[in-house]
C-alpha cells in the first residue's frame, strides 16, 4: 500500500549493485522527479528540453547512493532534498559562471569539507521540511474540523480497532468517489464505508476523525512524505479484523 517500506528495500538492493533494478527504479520515479523539479523551478518543464530535469534525475540517482536508512528521513524526502540542493547548485553555478567563469574549479578543491557541511545542511533542511509538512497537515486537518487533540482522544487504543479503522481509511483513500465525497461534503461516507469494510457503524463513527485524518494522509502521501513514510501501515493482506 504505502511504498515506504518497499522503497527502502529496493534502495538497499540497488545499493548492493543491482543495476537493472536501478534502471527500473529511476524510470518509475520519473514523475516524482518531474514534480519535485517543477516545484522548485516554479515553472513547467519538459523532458529532453530542460537541463533542470536531467540534473534532477542525476541528483535522484545520487540520492540512492547517498541515502542512509538510519538518518530518520524517508528516502523520497531525502531524494527531493538532494534534487532541490543540486538544482540550487546548478542555478548558482550558472550565475557565477556568467560573472567569474573559473571559480568552479576552486570549489571542487575542498570536496571533503564540502560534503560534510552538505550533509549537515541536508539534515537541517530535512527537519525543517518535516516541520513544515506537519504544520501543513495540521492546517489541512483543521479544514475538516479535526485537531491533533481530537485525534489523541479518538485514536483507538486497541490494535485490532486501530487496524480496522486504518483499513477503512485506506479504502476511503483508494476510492476516488468516496474521497471526493469526503472532500466536498467534509463528511465521512459512513454507510458506504460500512459496506466496504464490514466494520460496524458504531466503531466507524467513534473513529470518524481518525479515519478522516488517516485517509487524507494516505491519499496525499506524496505531499506528506515524512508523515506517511513514518507510519508502518498494515499490508493489504493484514486487514483489520472487523470488530464484533
Amino acid at each position, binding site marked *: 500500500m504505502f511504498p515506504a517500506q518497499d522503497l527502502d528495500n529496493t534502495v538497499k538492493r540497488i545499493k548492493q549493485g543491482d543495476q537493472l533494478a536501478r534502471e527500473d527504479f529511476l524510470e518509475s520515479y520519473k514523475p516524482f522527479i518531474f514534480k519535485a523539479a517543477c516545484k522548485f523551478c516554479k515553472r513547467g518543464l519538459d523532458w529532453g528540453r530542460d537541463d533542470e530535469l536531467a540534473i534532477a534525475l542525476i541528483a535522484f540517482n545520487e540520492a540512492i547512493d547517498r541515502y542512509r536508512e538510519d538518518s530518520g528521513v524517508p528516502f523520497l524526502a531525502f531524494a527531493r532534498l538532494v534534487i532541490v540542493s543540486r538544482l540550487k547548485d546548478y542555478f548558482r553555478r550558472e550565475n557565477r559562471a556568467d560573472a567569474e567563469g573559473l571559480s568552479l574549479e576552486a570549489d571542487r578543491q575542498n570536496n571533503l569539507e564540502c560534503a560534510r557541511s552538505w550533509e549537515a545542511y541536508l539534515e537541517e533542511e530535512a527537519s525543517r521540511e*518535516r516541520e513544515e509538512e506537519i504544520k501543513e497537515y495540521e492546517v489541512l486537518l483543521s479544514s475538516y474540523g479535526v485537531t491533533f487533540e481530537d485525534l*489523541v482522544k479518538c485514536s483507538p487504543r486497541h490494535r485490532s480497532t486501530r487496524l480496522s479503522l486504518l483499513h477503512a481509511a485506506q479504502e476511503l483513500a483508494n476510492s476516488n468517489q468516496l474521497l471526493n465525497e469526503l472532500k466536498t461534503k467534509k463528511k465521512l461516507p459512513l454507510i458506504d464505508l460500512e459496506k466496504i469494510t464490514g466494520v460496524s457503524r458504531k466503531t466507524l463513527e467513534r473513529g470518524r476523525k481518525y479515519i478522516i485524518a488517516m485517509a487524507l494522509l494516505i491519499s496525499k502521501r506524496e505531499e506528506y512524505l515524512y508523515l506517511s513514510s513514518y507510519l*508502518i501501515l498494515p499490508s493489504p493482506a493484514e486487514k483489520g479484523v472487523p470488530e464484533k
Partner: protein
Amino acid sequence: MMKERGMVVKVKSNSCIVLTPEGEYREVPLTEGSRARVGQEIQIPQRKTIPYFRFLMVAASLLAVVVLAGQFFPLAPPAAAYLTIDINPSVELGVTASEKVVSARGLNPDGERILAKVTVKGLKLSDAVDRIVSQAVTDQFLNDIDENIILATLTVEENQEPLVALDTVYEAIEKPVRYSGILAEIIIEPVTPKMREDAAKTGLSTGKFLVLKKSGEKGVPVSVDEVGGSSLGSLEKTKKISIIELLKENGINAAERSVEAEKNANSRKERSGIYYDGRKKATGSVTFTEGKTIKAEAKQEKDKEKDKDKGKKETPGRSDEKNRDNPRNVPGNNGNNKNDKDKNNKDRNDYDRNDQDRKNNKKMNGNKEDKENNNHKNNDGNNKDKSDNWKNNQNDNDGDNNRDRPGENESWSRQRAELTGNKLTGNSRDVLRVPLRWQLELPGINLNPQK
C-alpha cells in the same frame, strides 16, 4: 516492553502530541528541560501502567484521609446525657439519645483503672453499667465487709423526661450486685446539667458533689477532700450520716408543704430518684445466710412484715369494708363500681386498683381533715404494697425466698390488710421504717417535684 517512539506533531505547554508508527496519536508529557520540536522523533515514556498506578495512589490517599478523619473527628454524636457512677471508683459515661455510650471518663484514679479494664464505648448504656459494676465487684470495690453504696446520677434536662429510664439504669446496677451476693445501697438521682458543670468545677463526680452539697445544707461539715478521697460507704461511717436520707431530702420542701411531709417523703421522693437500700432488704430476706450483717432495725422490719402477713389473714373482711368506705366519700365516682367488681375479680391487675385508690385518696384529701391522715397512710401503704409485690417477684426469680410467697391473688388482699393494719395501729412510723423499695410505676414519675 519495548520503548515506543513517536514523531512530534504538536508541541503544547508541557506536553506534546506524537504520532506513533502504528498510527496512534498520543499525548505525551514533556519532561522538564527537554524541548521537543515538531517533526522530531522522541521516545515515548512508558505510561501504560502509570494511569493505574496514579489511580491507586489517589485511592490510597483518599482512603488514608477518610480513615484519619474518622479517627480525629469521630462521627459519633455528642453525648446527650451523662451518667456518673460512684462506687468508689467514679466514672462518667456520656450517653446519646439512643442509649449508646459515646464517652467514658474516670473521675478518680480508681475509675480510670476500671475503665482501662473494661471497654464500654459503643455499648448500650445498661450493658456498659453492668460491666463497670461487675468489674467493681471483681476488683473488690464492692465487697461483703464494707458499707456498699452505689450512687448514680443522670443528667436530665429541665422539664424533660430522662433520656434513659432510671429503672433501666437501676436494673443494670442491681443485676451484677445481686448475682455477686453483695449487699449494696443503690441510689439513682436525676440531676440538672448545671449540677454536672458545677461538679466538674470542683473536680468531683456529680454524685459526690451532690452529697457534698446536701450535707452542707444539712449542716454536716464535709470537705471536698473527704468526699472525693473516700468511698461513700466509709464517708457514711465516719460522718455518721445516711446518704440515702441525705439525698431523699432533695426537693422535698418544694414538693410537699403538708405537715405529713415526712411521711410522704418516701413515696414522693421516689418520684425524683431511686433509693434502694439493698443492705436492709438483703438482711430482711436472707437472714440466716447473712447473719453477721443483720441489724436490729432490719430484724424489726422483718418481724413487722410477718405481723402484716398475719394481719392480712386475720382481717380480710375489714379491708374490704375499708375499701368500700373510700369511694363512698366521693359519690358518683366511677371507681366505685369498679372497686366492687374488683373484689370479685381478684386476679385483676394491681395497678388499676392502686391508681384508683390514689384517686380516691386525692379526692378524699379535700374532704375531712381527720381522714387526711389516714389517706396519707393509705397512700403510703399502697406504694409500699406495690414495692412488696415487686420484691416478692424478685425473690421468686432468685428462688431464695424463704417466706410465704403471697400469690398475685393474695397481693390485693394483702394490700387491704395493710391498709387496715395502718388504720388499726395508727402508727405511721412503722410504715416509714419498712424499707423503701423499687417501685414498678416509675416511668410515670415526676422528676421535678419543684415544679
